[in-house]
């Protein structure tokens, strides 16, 4: 799975199957601080992801 984390401008490849909640746990990211997007669609915590998904994790926090 390709994961892009905008806050760190970091792109990574990880092995993962499970839901959005599980992905954020694996990445140690508090769900309160991000929205998760696949193919320009917003995903809720219970959406099950596939290992070939391209996921964006976008920070909700303002830039100062």
């Amino acid at each position, binding site marked *: 799975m390709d994961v892009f984390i*905008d*806050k760190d*401008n970091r792109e990574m490849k990880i092995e993962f199957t499970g839901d959005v909640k599980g992905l954020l746990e694996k990445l140690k990211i*508090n*769900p*309160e*601080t991000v*929205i998760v*997007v696949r193919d320009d*669609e*917003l*995903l*809720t*915590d*219970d*959406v099950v992801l596939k290992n070939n998904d391209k996921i964006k994790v*976008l*920070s*909700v*926090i*303002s*830039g*100062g």
Partner: protein
Amino acid sequence: MKCGLCEKNAVFGNPAYCKEHFCGYIEKKVLGTIEKYNLIEKGQKVAVAASGGKDSLSVLYILNKYGYGVTALAIDEGISGYRDRTLATLKKICGAHKIKLRIVSFKGKFSKSLDEILFTNRERPCTVCGVFRRYLLNLHARDYDVLATGHNMDDEAQVTLMNLIKNNLSAMQRMGPSAGVVSSEKFTRRVKPLYFCTEKEIMTYAFINKLTADFNECPNVSRAFRLRVRDMLNEIEQEVPGAKKNLIEWSLKSKTGMKTGEEGLRECRACGELSSADVCMACRYMEKISV
């Protein structure tokens, strides 16, 4: 997860709504806040303090959508690689939605950009920036009836907790959806239409309505204590859902009518703007850093 109101997929979990119902939920909440706290009347001239970030863009977008006469008022501090990018987003959105845009700059008023000020002075960036930004906002907001800002529930919950930790009850009195000095012609009333919207809700709304830019953080950001409070609150919210809302509701209840710290306000001897001392902070900084 399905939307609680229709058969479409939800885009937000709590409350569970699809795109359309989520946008309706946010807009209803914002318009409800405006009405409940008498923030803005139809026909008033409204300036929105606009940075080009998701919060101020959402305020602009919603007020414009519902027929309020808004102008985006932006301060260009002159922070290269940051403000130029957020202003580009702001110009694009204002152009697309036919919203008036007014940009005033540090360079224009103080003859130096923030980058230039910091290059030759060892001031703390956020302090000098905050003083000059507020000065320019006060000055230019005077042409409007109301100045709307993009402060959201997270911002307000963080400040509430910081005021508590610092035992700053007078600062608490100045909080709320409508805030600031109310008794002077030199001060335009501040209102916060997003007061009851969380940061995550606003980001979701901004994403749906294409009001977001690439993540872009000010290179000078150094609010160490504020950041710790923010992270702590986000962790607490996970364990105690509703904690942020409880905090801001508590802060509203704690407004007891005690002194707000505005009682000693007077006109600055140098520039005539409102000040808590004989000479205002902006004039003292201008003197100190020879702008």
